[in-house]
């Protein structure tokens, strides 16, 4: 670039700036008037804005502006309105019993809406978005329940959790790790595995079943019952229903007897309001068919 004299460009009739780059010169066209006026107008608008709205930061605060605009106040006002709106539905849920909620079409629809969103945010992580569960996490859609499938049972399980540290948490009794803790030797664990396979009406080694009969009565029947039907009060699974939390194969059953895994479910009492707990219980119950079949 070289600075030269300003000259008049004969093609356009406009003066150049005197700047030149490789023979290309810059015309000294003034800014368009409209652009200039908009620019001045923005300056005026800014000055007005400083007066009306919060604008300048100070040492211990900021200029508030004469309109008193505050986004924080707006948000809290909207939140208050939202809570007031939610309060209407919440009050209805608080007043009604779980059965009443499920039987009233309108309350049920409301509870299902609340339940669905709460379930998706909190329960779906383990039980799956549809509640179908996964290995180690119970399926909430069928009629097999560890702690009972009635409305009250489900409500209790969600409230206090299983081995959750809550005062009244479920799951005081534990499945022992028979193998790992050397309560039974390898051969006996193998035999009991065959026995459990036989309980679920599948072909098993008859001799092993024979040998394990006494062991089962001594070690397992206390919780799972003499016929292996389980015990809802202890959360002991029914071993005859063909539904397996940790898998149905011999290997999976042997692993469970050897290691004795005990599931944990958190308590939600502190996290959810009482009406949310109710809505969630109704949601889970309804999605498990909502019938009497869900009660055992």
């Amino acid at each position, binding site marked *: 670039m070289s600075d030269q004299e300003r000259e*008049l460009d004969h093609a356009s009739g406009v003066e150049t700036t005197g700047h030149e780059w490789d023979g290309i010169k810059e015309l000294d066209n003034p800014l368009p008037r409209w652009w200039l006026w908009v620019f001045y107008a923005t300056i005026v608008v800014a000055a007005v804005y400083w007066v009306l709205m919060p604008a300048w930061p100070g040492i211990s605060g900021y200029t508030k502006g004469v309109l008193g605009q505050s986004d924080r106040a707006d948000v809290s006002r909207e939140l208050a309105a939202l809570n007031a709106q939610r309060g209407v539905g919440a009050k209805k849920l608080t007043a009604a019993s779980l059965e009443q909620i499920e039987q009233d079409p309108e309350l049920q629809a409301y509870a299902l809406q609340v339940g669905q969103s709460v379930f998706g945010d909190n329960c779906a992580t383990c039980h799956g978005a*549809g*509640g179908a569960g996964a290995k180690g996490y119970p399926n909430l859609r*069928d009629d097999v329940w560890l702690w009972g499938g009635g409305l009250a049972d489900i409500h209790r399980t969600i409230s206090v959790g299983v081995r959750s540290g809550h005062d009244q948490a479920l799951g005081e009794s534990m499945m022992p790790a028979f193998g790992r803790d050397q309560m039974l030797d390898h051969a006996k664990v193998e035999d009991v595995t065959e026995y459990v396979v036989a309980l679920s009406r599948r072909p098993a080694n008859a001799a092993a079943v024979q040998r394990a009969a006494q062991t089962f009565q001594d070690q397992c029947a206390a919780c799972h019952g003499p016929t292996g039907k389980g015990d809802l009060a202890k959360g002991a699974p029914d071993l005859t229903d063909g539904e397996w939390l940790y898998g149905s194969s011999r290997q999976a059953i042997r692993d469970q007897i050897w290691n004795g895994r005990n599931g944990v479910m958190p308590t939600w009492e502190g996290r959810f309001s009482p009406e949310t707990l109710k809505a969630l219980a109704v949601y889970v119950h309804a999605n498990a068919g909502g019938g009497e079949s869900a009660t055992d």
Partner: protein
Amino acid sequence: MTVVIDRVNRPEPVQRQGPASAAAKVRAKDARSGLYKPRTPIYPKLVHGRWRAIKWALLILTLTIYYVTPWIRWDRPGKLPDQAVLVDFAGRRFYFFDIQLWPQEVHYLTGLLVIAALGLFLATALFGRLWCGYACPQTVWTDLFIYVERLFEGDRNARMRLDAAPWSFDKLWRKVGKHAVWLGIGFGTGGAWIFYFHDAPQLIRDFWVGQGPMTAYVFCALLTFTTYVFAGFMREQVCIYMCPWPRIQGAMLDQHSLQVTYRYDRGEPRGAHKKAESWVGRGDCIDCRQCVVACPMGIDIRNGPQLECINCGLCIDACDEIMVKVGRSKALIAYDTDAAVADRQAGRKPVYRLVRARTVFYAVLLAAVSGLMLWGLTHRQPLDLHVLRDRNPTFVRLKDGSVRDGYTLKIANRSFEPQTYQVTFTGVPGATLKSPGVDADRPLAVEVPANEVRSVRVFVTAKPGQLSSANMPAAFQIRSGEAQATAKTLFLSGAAN
């Protein structure tokens, strides 16, 4: 050709007077109407006659319909709105007397628009631009605004004098008065519009105390503005430059369409005529230009059919007045066809052909679409059923080996009464139907309040022996009295059998 740019011997800079850049040139030209033609003010003269009378009558009729409709009450049961015509955006319903449309039924609106378009095609092919001349809101409101203008400023000549005169108190109050009334009409127009979308008696109270919905204020302001500007200032410019219809006309009209026509076969050669002169050897047009000064579009109809002509017929009235005065027969300008004028010019008897391939085609289409709409409206079911099958999990196995599928039924009750629908499931023999909170022993019945949608969770359980395939076609049916609806779905059971 080679262009040599001499970079060494630069030409001497030419000194010019004033701006000379390309932009400046255009700008200078623009100021003298270079790029855009400035609007030439039109001062239509008041005429009297048959077409003017029809236009007044239609103006009163159409404006009455527009302003009165939202105030018609129509009893509907329960909490439903009692306004005869209401577009309820918040509640997502359109009420039109006994008809009530849901958003899913928007095809009726499409049908209505198709009918309107075909009706317009047919009317245009038969009788020319009747819509433009008599019924278009732009024409009607412009007519009303010119009427107001005339009240304050007088007829054509007085208005032209007033505009040319320097400012005075007389000019000021007339102008201010006119614009005030225009704005008032504009406000009334926008104000009436918003009543179609809310309960009118409620809104009119809320509106004045600042409690109306924001959309009401916005649309009222918008329509006040457009009415004031379109009818007060832009007028014929809207028709000529903004409206697509004049362009579409070309495809609708043919030589047999009725249009406002200057019968040149009779009028030419034109020229001034003195009282005693003979009419032999000359046309009836005395070149008095009354047709031109009466025209709200500012055109000369004697130039033949034009894009600008809205076929309002005011020039017919203007010309008829003159023809009576000079003692010639009326209808030198009349609703006529190009073909008829050409026939007369050639000495043949004019033939008017209303039935042509084009008009028959439009009429048949119009009848077909109207018939379809009518059939649809009379045969619509007051209920609707949608089934959403659970996809996660698609099914669950129960303890006893049976399989359960979950569904969400969405039942829409489009009637004005609460209904109880009996729900049945078909497709899987012996399958049982159950809904949470409902006694399993009784048949499933769902109550749906008037004019609402209710979704219901239902579960279908089937024994393994009943399942003939892993994927069985099935259907839900709901029934309430005569009304019934069926929705197809599937019963999935994996490899259950």
